[in-house]
């Protein structure tokens, strides 16, 4: 009885997410949710169940295989529902990077005999930038569109770069460093007007679960999403490919994922992603995070030397700030000692000055002192308070350049 009540107590703690507030160092204020998120209790539980009980191979003909396949089907439907799309259009991958690579190479190779030009924005995630660089090495022409001073990509700039030779346009839905929301629907409309044959891809990793994404009304042909930014585990993502759009696979093997992405499915991850998608509450979470964001902006701008870089219209989940003239890496370690976790600029671009921030008009020095604070539904006002106190203390004690 005692053990049972302990178990329920634990579950209760877990479900209230108290567990993720207490990490190895005591009280944690995790404000780096654009880097990755804590896996939700229900998603983690699903992954565990699949690993230990429903561990059949979805391709097996026996009943265990069928049970596993049912999980796969459910997850596919859950992801598709979040994109207002058909389950048959979802291809599971190992994450956002693989999905972006599949979209870029898949679209470029599918059309390479007739169209050999690719247009991307200059502020894409490195999995798009580097894939495009590789295609450039292979003889494709690549044009990179810079953002306007508001941090957004303008439809006219993209349309001007598209010609009859353009195979693919790729523009992210939400920027990972500033939270700027790109007018992707307008961009793709302008692109299709110029050349209906051109495929349109958007990397929606930072928007998934935060904006209501309607795949068709966005005008996209491919959409990338990722699991670990939405409280599912790392190692799972998906590419939505509009029915009728042909991509060339990047790897060869079995019949899984309509041969577009062969290999035995990462079912624990995929099933957990399905559960995480079921937990999305875009409106309620958005309202809560908007309130937090507003509170954070107010408190942070009250600290002398702190400026907010994210445009007012940006997605509230990401807040880019510049903290005095303290190097962001130093401030980051200082905050980490106090249990507050943030990123310097963007975690993927370790050490490189951010082109996104420079496009927003920040000097090199300012960009070098920029932190990215990113929220999730589990964050509270206390987390913001800890952040603000930490930054204020850091500015007082840490050396300026």
């Amino acid at each position: 009885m005692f053990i049972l009540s302990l178990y329920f107590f634990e579950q209760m703690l877990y479900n209230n997410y108290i567990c993720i507030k207490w990490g190895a160092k005591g009280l944690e204020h995790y404000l780096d949710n654009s880097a990755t998120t804590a896996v939700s209790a229900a998603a983690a539980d699903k992954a565990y169940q699949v690993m230990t009980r429903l561990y059949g191979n979805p391709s097996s003909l026996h009943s265990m295989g069928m049970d596993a396949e049912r999980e796969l089907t459910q997850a596919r439907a859950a992801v598709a529902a979040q994109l207002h799309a058909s389950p048959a259009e979802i291809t599971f991958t190992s994450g956002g990077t693989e999905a972006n690579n599949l979209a870029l190479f898949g679209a470029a190779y599918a059309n390479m005999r007739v169209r050999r030009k690719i247009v991307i924005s200059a502020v894409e995630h490195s999995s798009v930038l580097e894939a495009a660089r590789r295609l450039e090495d292979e003889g494709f022409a690549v044009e990179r569109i810079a953002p306007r001073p508001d941090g957004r990509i303008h439809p006219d700039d993209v349309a001007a770069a598209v010609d009859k030779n353009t195979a693919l346009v790729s523009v992210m839905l939400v920027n990972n460093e500033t939270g700027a929301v790109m007018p992707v629907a307008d961009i793709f409309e302008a692109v299709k007007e110029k050349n209906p044959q051109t495929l349109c891809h958007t990397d929606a990793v930072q928007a998934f679960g935060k904006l209501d994404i309607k795949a068709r009304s966005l005008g996209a042909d491919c959409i990338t999403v990722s699991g670990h930014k939405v409280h599912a585990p790392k190692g799972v993502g998906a590419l939505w490919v509009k029915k009728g759009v042909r991509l060339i696979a990047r790897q060869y093997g079995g019949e899984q994922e309509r041969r577009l992405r062969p290999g035995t499915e990462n079912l624990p991850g995929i099933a957990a992603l399905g559960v995480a998608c079921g937990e999305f509450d875009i409106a309620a979470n958005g309202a809560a995070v908007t309130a937090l964001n507003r509170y954070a902006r107010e408190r942070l701008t009250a600290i002398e030397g702190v400026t907010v870089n994210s445009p007012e219209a940006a997605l509230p989940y990401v807040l880019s700030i510049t903290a005095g003239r303290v190097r962001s890496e130093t401030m980051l370690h200082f905050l980490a000692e106090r249990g507050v976790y943030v990123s310097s600029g963007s975690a993927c671009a370790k050490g490189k000055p951010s082109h996104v921030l420079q496009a927003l008009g920040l000097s090199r020095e300012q960009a070098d002192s920029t932190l990215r604070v990113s929220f999730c539904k589990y964050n509270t006002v206390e987390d913001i308070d800890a952040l603000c106190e930490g930054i204020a203390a850091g500015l007082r004690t840490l050396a300026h350049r």
Partner: protein
Amino acid sequence: MKEIILIKDGEIVLKGLNRRQFEDVLKKNIRIALHELGRFEITSAQSTITVKPLSEDIDLDEVCDRVGRVFGIVSYSRAALCEEKSMESVLATAPVYLEKQLRKAKTFKVEAKRSDKKFPLKSPEISRELGGVLLSKFPHLRVDVHHPDVTVTVEIRDYAAYVRADAIRGAGGIPVGTGGKAAVLISGGIDSPVAAYMMAKRGLKLTAIHFASPPYTSQRAEEKVVRLLQKVSRYATPMTMYTVPFTEIQEKLRDDCPEELFTIIMRRLMMQMAERIAKDNGCAALITGESLGQVASQTIGALGCTDEATDMVVFRPLIGMDKQEIIDISYKIDTYETSIEPYEDCCTVFTPKHPRTKPILKFVKAAQEQAGFEPLIEKALQNLKVTQIYPE
């Protein structure tokens, strides 16, 4: 067939009466290097150290790999131990043991080393007989005494007979520990691990000193240094690392010293603190990775100012080397990839815009004394963090 490793020791042969002692250290270092691979019998006789595995399951490729990194070894080779010390046994062992190498080769020769003068056949006779047998077993082979693809060596020793192919070049140098102890200042860059490696090669046992400035430097920078030292200790044997908490001292530097002298005073403070740690640990010298002219703190004037801070001998094995030469060695000892990981180290915290390249000692000393670092140095030295480093 029993396989063993024959090791020729190097410069230590020259050391006259100390030789015995040197050989003992070398044997100990070999034992440490092979420690967790299994049990071995390590003996020396006639300027050769013999490593005999005591169980069947020992991975001799890994043993050779490690022996190749022990300083004090000129060359080593794998050899088959003949079942008995007779010509019949040699003739039976060689074709079987060397089959793979001989099949791949086009030409060969046989060399005999007969240190046991009581063996009934003389060296040329051994060579001729074994050569004949090998030619009949491997008809594709030709004898070439000048440039053979494979040299088959027969060693007839007082206690046993061995058959082996070509020897492999060892790491050279002098056994670690026979030259005394020294402390190396290690930052996490490309240079200092190379400097540590080079001085260990000359027989020094190392202690490592690292300066950390959290939060200006990250925990990852310190972990990176640990990983670098683990690589270095594959050559330099296990060592102790001291991490000096340097934040307060650097902050005082920034607050109380002229900006253009930051770096030079910081280097002096590092040397002074390192000297004290070194002396406490029985070290007789300091080692740094400085290379003349590489950065502002490594000009002839700056090095003079740094040197004046300590009475200890300071070894700077990279002083006359180009960056590329240093990088080549770091590739060889496998530290390069780790060294270039982009974590800030304490040397780059608060770097002045225009550091003095020709500092005047008088002013540097005055500025340092005026700031008064002694209490903070005391405090830092009392809060050293100690980490034991073992080969990775």
